[in-house]
């Protein structure tokens, strides 16, 4: 198939085809935007920012899932939309996070996640809810 004109461009912000109400990673090399990210007001309050080790674990899981090239920087500030995850990548990342942290992520609670830090903060909150003593 002939290459699409513009295929050398980075699909940083593809047309947003569906709902903002969920975790989504549209952009980069793929933009299958059934799940999609954009900056949104936080719908839940976190009592503290995410723990460093949680952020690191999320970064590891994301790097592994997306098979990012060696040296690609993924940090708390990394936006999922910029990392190039499509919907399948997204659900695999969510599954990976659930397995790693022994939590269950509902579609609706993932809606305000835009960055790795946001995901880590949600994880810390869910983990704290599972455990009897407050983690904050």
């Amino acid at each position, binding site marked *: *198939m002939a290459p699409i004109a513009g295929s050398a461009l980075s699909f940083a912000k593809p047309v*947003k085809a569906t709902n903002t*109400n969920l975790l989504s990673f549209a952009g980069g090399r*793929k933009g299958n935007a059934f799940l999609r990210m954009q900056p949104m007001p936080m719908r839940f309050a976190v009592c503290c920012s995410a723990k460093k080790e949680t952020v690191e674990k999320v970064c590891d899981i994301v790097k592994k899932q997306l098979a990012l090239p060696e040296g690609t920087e993924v940090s708390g500030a990394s936006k999922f939309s910029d990392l190039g995850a499509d919907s399948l990548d997204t659900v695999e990342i969510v599954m990976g996070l659930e397995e790693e942290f022994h939590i269950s992520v509902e*579609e609706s609670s993932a809606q305000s996640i835009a960055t790795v830090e946001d995901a880590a903060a949600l994880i810390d909150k869910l983990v704290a809810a599972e455990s009897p003593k407050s983690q904050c």
Partner: protein
Amino acid sequence: MLASVSSLVQTNKRLDTDANIDPRSFEFKKNKFGKPEILWQSDESSMEWPLHFNISHTSSLIACGIAMDTPIGIDVEEKKRKTVKSILSLARRYFTPSEVDYLAKISDSDAQQKEFIKLWTLKEAYVKALGRGFSGAPFNRFSIQLETNSRIQISKAAKVCNDSASGCDYLSENWRFALAELNSSYYMSVCIEDNSRGFENDSVPLGLKVWKTIPFIEDTLVSGTDAVKLIT
């Protein structure tokens, strides 16, 4: 931003070709769930029915589906897309029990992976047609039945719907699907509302036409050729 513009330019061009409307007159908006739509003027006199569209991307393909007077959802994926997690573990987490059973019965792993991708694109096409987002139509609340040589069916997953607090209020079953293989490399699923009003319409074709477009270079009707193999 560039990808958005190019997708919209493609949409504009295709809409223009079909509808004989000046593409500059198209305006776009988002529904309350963020789905891009055409802002249809109620006094639009040159077209009897509103146009609907939906877009899907892979790394090397953009697909834009257009329909008259019916919401549409479209999804494309590479046929050989590999997952990091196993197919059955993904299905168990996100699909319905009947879909898991369907996949589990396939012993050949390549064939199983392909059926998973087919189901994935069909389910995505439905969610996108509904336009309420993933949380408006969670994958485990509806089942797609893929039987050879018969129409793709969708049904609510009764047990999950009865158990969940919000039920499956927004899930409807009156939708039609088309599943096709593009260039032997991609699966494409299209979902539109079924307005047959109860008539038996297995014999009524969806009237799907597919164009291969390279922006500003080529625009060829490819449905009916080997480039588009209808699976159902």
